[in-house]
Each structure stands twice: as structure tokens, then as C-alpha cells.
């Protein structure tokens, strides 16, 4: 079971959350974006093997969308923040 730290509610079981995906992709500006930028935004992902910043919604809790940094190779939690916040830098990967 993943234990996800909601910045509003504290550590909660993964079953209270809904996953969305990579939180680093940026929606391009519709006024100026090229076709290529749109396609990259919609279909292409970094898909890193290691720390990954991702969207989760605390859907069975406070219902806020949050950002979580998680090592997708080890399932290790590396920090979380409010949807508009930044995950604190000092929370780097814990030593093995």
C-alpha cells in the first residue's frame, strides 16, 4: 500500500486517492502554440525511471489535487505539495 502525504490531511492510504499522471507537462498557450507543441503535450511523456512528479486527487478525503514526488522504481515517497505549490527541494532521495 502506498502511503501518500496529502499536504492538507497528512499521510493517507493510496485507496483514498485518484491518480492523474505526470505533473510536469505544461498545457501550451492556445494563442501561440504550434501543432507540434500540442501533440507533444498530449501524447509524449518523459516517463522517467526514478523520481517522478505526479498529480493525485485526494478524492476520498479533502478532494484537493496535489503534487507528489515519488520514485517510480522503488515506490518511495519523496515529498508532496499543494497543486500550485512546489515540492521542497531538500526532500531528496533518502539514502539507500
Amino acid at each position, binding site marked *: *500500500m502506498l502511503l501518500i502525504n496529502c499536504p492538507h490531511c497528512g499521510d493517507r492510504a493510496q485507496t483514498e486517492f485518484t491518480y492523474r499522471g505526470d505533473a510536469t507537462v505544461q498545457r501550451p498557450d492556445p494563442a501561440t502554440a504550434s501543432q507540434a507543441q500540442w501533440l507533444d503535450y498530449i501524447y509524449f*511523456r518523459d516517463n522517467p525511471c526514478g523520481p517522478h512528479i505526479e498529480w493525485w486527487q485526494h478524492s476520498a478525503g479533502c478532494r484537493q489535487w496535489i503534487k507528489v514526488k515519488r520514485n517510480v522504481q522503488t515506490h518511495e515517497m519523496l515529498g508532496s505539495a499543494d497543486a500550485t505549490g512546489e515540492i521542497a527541494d531538500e526532500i531528496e532521495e533518502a539514502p539507500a
Partner: protein
Amino acid sequence: MRYSIFSLARNALTNHENWQEAWKSPEPKPSYDVIIIGGGGHGLATAYYLAKNHNITNVALLEKGWIGGGNTGRNTTIIRSNYLLEPNAHLYEHSMKLWEGLSQDLNFNLMFSQRGVLNLAHSDAQIDALHRRGNAMRLNGIDAEILNLQRIKEMVPLLDTSAQTRFPIMGGLLQPRGGTARHDSVAWGYARAADARGVDIIENCEVTGFKREGGKVVGVETTRGAIDAQKIGVAVAGNTTRVMDMLDMRMPMESHVLQAMVTEPVKPMLDTVVTSGAAHLYISQSDKGELVFGGDLDGYNSYAQRGNFPVLEHIIQAVITLFPAVSRLRLMRTWGGLMDMSMDGSPIICKTDIQGLYLNAGWCYGGFKATPASGYCFAHTIANDAPHEYNAAFTLDRFHQGWLIDEKGVGASPMSH
């Protein structure tokens, strides 16, 4: 040596101690005509068909672990071609036809069993959807039958078909030619047959980089030294992004974990494959007697070949709801595999913009059944520098054009396919 009843009898006389190794495991040569990266079923089948159909035998297959140790040895072995969209229907039906003669072709018993694949419907909308799919299949020359509840009861007597169950069953779609095959045998059979035609199967050999000259790839760096090649095919499933990152090529893909499990073996109780989209379950019984089942992805990006309990619990609830008789069985094993979830749920088999580089990826959780056709079409593409008609639609470029092959119609959400 050909495997036969006679070779079996001969080797019985010497206590089965003198069987020849099935493939040779040579040291890598400095250069090859073609290198295939990834020793899953897809890579192995590609190497085999390069040799068999195109007479290209100076081929090395490089596998970082042992062959079949990836998804090929972790899947639930369901084979079917019950697809709605034309490109998928043709590719998977081609695969089905290859499966039908494959044990003979490879001289290896794949335990291919056409026991039927039955999709259950639990609502009017699902009945409509199954009719639509069944009709599309038949228009494409694929076998499909709509079953009413009475026929389902007769076919799968242990299924809870009562009106009181959580998701009452209303009907189903049967593909009689669907079924299962022994996954390990598929890896071993292709490896042995490729080796017999001159392919070098090289295990414990991880590709760590590419050698490039101008716009071309001309070789790979590996944990066992550098190896040159004129053409390189990548077939590494959940590791696709990691390998393509070495070439700075972005992929329309996320890696996810999919779990499955088996119970202790019991007497024969289920002689077909049953799936339920609504309950998130597919289940069959292995020849050893174990019930083999799985369901959905864990649902978050993962490169760990293991998952978490909530999904297991969900799948087990579905099994017990549909088959109350199994509630006292003990689970023997659970495991996970690394899925290459593409953005439209369909695969990629094509040449790339880099000369000499070919890509086979995006199989999501349905790639086992595709193994023969995938290898067949990928070998064709590598040999001819042009796709076979059955993989012409499965380009990487479709994601640059927005021309998707989205079987489920769920959009660019890899975990939903």
C-alpha cells in the same frame, strides 16, 4: 535435433541426462547484420522470422537478463483476436493464424489450447457493445458468437449466473478460436528455432548506449562490450523509454505495473477463458490446475516489477463474486510486470527517423497474443525497410499526426487502455 516421440524415448533410456542444450549462448561477435534488443517473445520471434522468412541469419539477440524473464514469462497467456478496429483486427488475426501452426513450425510444444475466450456483459450497454464488436469481427473474417445466459450457464457451470450476484450476467461474446498457450515455451521455442537457423542468443547482455555515425545507428554499447550492426531493432516492452532516451527520442508512452496471480492447483473446473470488463477480471485454469487471473493496472507510473495490495484485493473480490466456489482456495504467487502503455493503447512497429533503427513497443497488456505477428511484421519491416501490410498503420508518426488507433476510445490516458 528434432523433438519427437522417438527423441523422447531415446533420452528416456539415458535418464534424460543427455538432452542437447536448446540454444548455444555464444560470446558476442564484433559485428552483425542485425541486432535485436530484448529477449522477450517479440524480440525472439523477430530474430526467428528474420532468419526463416528473410534469410538474414547473421543476427544477435541481446537480452539483459534471461530470455522470457520479462513480460513474456509474467503474463496470463490469453490469446484472442476479438478486436474492433481494422488495423488491430488484421494484426491479431494474423497472429492467431500463426499460433494455429506454431508448435509444428517451431518443433516445440507450446501447449496452445483453443479453449475459447468468453467476454461477459453485465448491462444493456455492454450487450450492445459486444454485438458491435462481434459484428466487426465477423466482417473481418474472425470467429465470434453472441451467447445468451442459458448458453453461458451450460458452458461455465461454476459461474454465478444468478440474479442476486453483484453484477448479474446478461450475455457474452465468445471467440471459440481464442485460448491460451504456455508462455515460457513461446520464449524457449522461438529461441531454439532461431538458434538452429544461426541466430546468436546472448543473455546477460544489457544495452547501455548506441554508437552513431551521422544520422545513423551503427552499433550498441553493452555490458559485454561494443557490438556493431547495420540494423538495430528495439523490442524492450516496459523499458522502451529508457532505451530510446539513449537516443534522445521521446516516446508516447508511460510504464505501468500490471499484476497477476495463481491459486493452488485444483481438479479441472474451468475449461475456457472468462473475462469481465465490468468486474475487471480475466481468469483461466492452467494445465497444472492453478487458476490464473489478473485485472487492471495498479494505475500509477511504475518501473517496479511489483505492485500493491489494493489492486490484488479488488481482483480477488471479482473472482469470488463471479466464481463463489473458489473462495477457499489459497493463492500461491502474485507478481507484476512492466507494461509499455502507449497513449492510444495500440502498438508501434515501424522504422524510425534514425537510419538503421527500428522500434517495436507499446504493447500494453495485450502483447503476448501478438507475439508471432509482431515478430513476423517487425522482421519484415527490418528486412525490407518497409512495413508489412499488417503493421503499416502502427507507426510512431501517428502520434505526431494525431491519427490514433484507440480501440477503447478513452483518449490519451495510458492507464485507461
